[in-house]
């Protein structure tokens, strides 16, 4: 009976076949590199042959005196980004959907994703100029209206998160909206017609038709975003690091890249990366189960 259902779905398995092979070759085979975290890195030996170093690097990582700071900073930043960025993208999609003029909608849509293509280096340079304590525009206004000394916004730990989140949302919202817009465009307009004939106002239409129709996409995007919580964005944070805000700007990503790349402590960096992966796995499992139970939407 089992074989019968396998045959019934033969085309489906055919469709899946290249993907399975692909992941095996390009993802699972190279994955042995992860064992590097438990070995002593040597050149002329393949990773199989390198001598075991046991949990040494893992210990080094866990006992690093800033370990909990790194985790805390990373999670806090990525959580904030999700908290603001996700509704922003969804909200923008909904707002755009309410625009009746087609050319205006398209125009705004197009310009909204422009910052996505501009590298962080350029965006942060711009932000730091606007917020500069050396007669940057914002500080000029501030001293004129409120007096006092200029504030070094980027270097100030209390402003750090606001700037990180604001710049991240602004840079990505247009691009992230595209998915939601695509989903919204699949909604049958007859639903809207029927609803307005029954007297539904604009907000009611949004609440009872638009949102529920794209609930699956919202759910899936949320779950997938959860998996990214252990990484708070290397490039952006690196550019915002200042000696005065290190207490909040040291994150796992900068630690890994710094230790691994710059200093060559590869085994240490590998362990840290693996740690990120394991925690992300746990988070996604949890998010997936909760979502399945609450709304039926889940990855598997």
């Amino acid at each position, binding site marked *: 009976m089992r074989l019968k259902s396998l045959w019934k779905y033969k085309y489906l398995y055919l469709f899946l076949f290249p993907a399975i092979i692909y992941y095996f070759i390009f993802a699972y085979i190279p994955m042995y590199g992860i064992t590097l975290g438990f070995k002593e890195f040597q050149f002329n030996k393949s990773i199989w042959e390198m001598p075991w170093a046991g949990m040494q690097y893992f210990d080094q990582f866990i006992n690093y005196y800033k370990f909990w700071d790194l985790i805390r900073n990373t999670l806090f930043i990525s959580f904030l980004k999700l908290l603001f960025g996700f509704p922003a993208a969804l909200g923008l999609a909904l707002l755009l959907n309410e625009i009746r003029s087609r050319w205006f909608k398209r125009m705004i849509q197009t*310009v909204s994703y422009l910052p996505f293509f501009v590298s962080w280096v350029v965006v942060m340079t711009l932000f730091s100029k606007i917020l500069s304590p050396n007669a940057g525009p914002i500080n000029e206004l501030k001293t004129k209206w409120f007096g006092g000394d200029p504030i070094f916004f980027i270097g100030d730990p209390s402003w750090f998160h606001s700037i990180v989140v604001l710049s991240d949302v602004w840079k990505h919202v247009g691009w992230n909206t595209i998915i939601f817009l695509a989903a919204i465009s*699949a909604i049958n307009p007859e639903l809207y017609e029927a609803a307005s004939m029954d007297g539904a106002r604009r907000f009611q239409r949004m609440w009872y038709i638009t949102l529920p129709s794209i609930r699956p996409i919202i759910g899936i995007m949320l779950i997938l975003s959860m998996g990214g919580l252990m990484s708070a964005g290397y490039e952006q944070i690196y550019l915002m690091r200042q000696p005065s805000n290190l207490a909040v700007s040291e994150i796992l990503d900068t630690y890994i890249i710094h230790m691994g790349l710059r200093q060559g402590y590869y085994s240490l960096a590998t362990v840290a990366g693996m740690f990120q992966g394991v925690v992300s796995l746990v988070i996604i499992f949890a998010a997936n189960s909760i979502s399945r139970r609450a709304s039926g939407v889940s990855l598997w």
Partner: protein
Amino acid sequence: MVYKETLGEKWFTISNYLFLILFGCSTVYLFFYILVLSFNDGIDALKGGIYFWPREFTLANYQTAFGNPNIMSAFRLSVLRAGVGTFLSVLLTSMAAYALLRKDLPGRKYIIFYCFFTTLFSGGIIPLYMLYKEIGLINSIWIYIIPGMYSFFNIIIIRTYFENIPHSLSESARMDGAGDLRIFFQIYLPLSKPVLATIALFVAVAHWNDWVTGAFFVNNPDLIPAATLLQKVLAETSFEANAMQQSMNSDLMAKAVSNTTPEALRMAFVIIVTIPVLCVYPFLQKYFVQGVMIGSIKE
């Protein structure tokens, strides 16, 4: 469908437009500012004060970027990989998405997890490099296409979209004797234009912007894409490169090398990299029109 808008709704409309205009202005201005700086002499730009128009117009930044003898082959390659890679990727990804639709497919959960797991753990550059070497992808044009074939994220997005397509369509087609193959190509694909256009855009842009593959896995200068080439040009104008030039011990050398600053160059790159996408996107926007599925349901 004519009805009176309440006062509240009118306010909403107005503020909506206003907000979007403001938002749009901020993003447009960013781009415009970059455009202006890209046409301005780098050294002059250092003095600041340029906001709306180039003060010292120059094409030098673009000339440095395009002056590289490999630039044309690099662009050709980028376009090629964006075209072929996207087509293949979208096709294969949507096929996988379709296959994972039905919850009663034996092993579905495990297959999904199997694919998902790979997004969290990676062995690093060195095992990848050795793998590519074994397979013969190093210095081959296929390095740009094959490793980028699937993305778990894209599979799931397309699948989610597919789930929205009414079951009744495929049911009735099955009753008429159609198998999965026909249902996929004749029903699901045509109805999924918005999501396919979206994923195509994502994949194409990822191909276009990817500079890492060309930097790590290819040594042949005729086989690198535009993004890698531009990265190379940028590296030549960096502070460290300038320091090296100075210590190369030659008077003529110190001043000779670049007539642009890294910043001005970077501005030119952003423009070069973004313009093609801007040109392509309008053609995709028509797929985001509402009601793409109406016609089918009557069927």
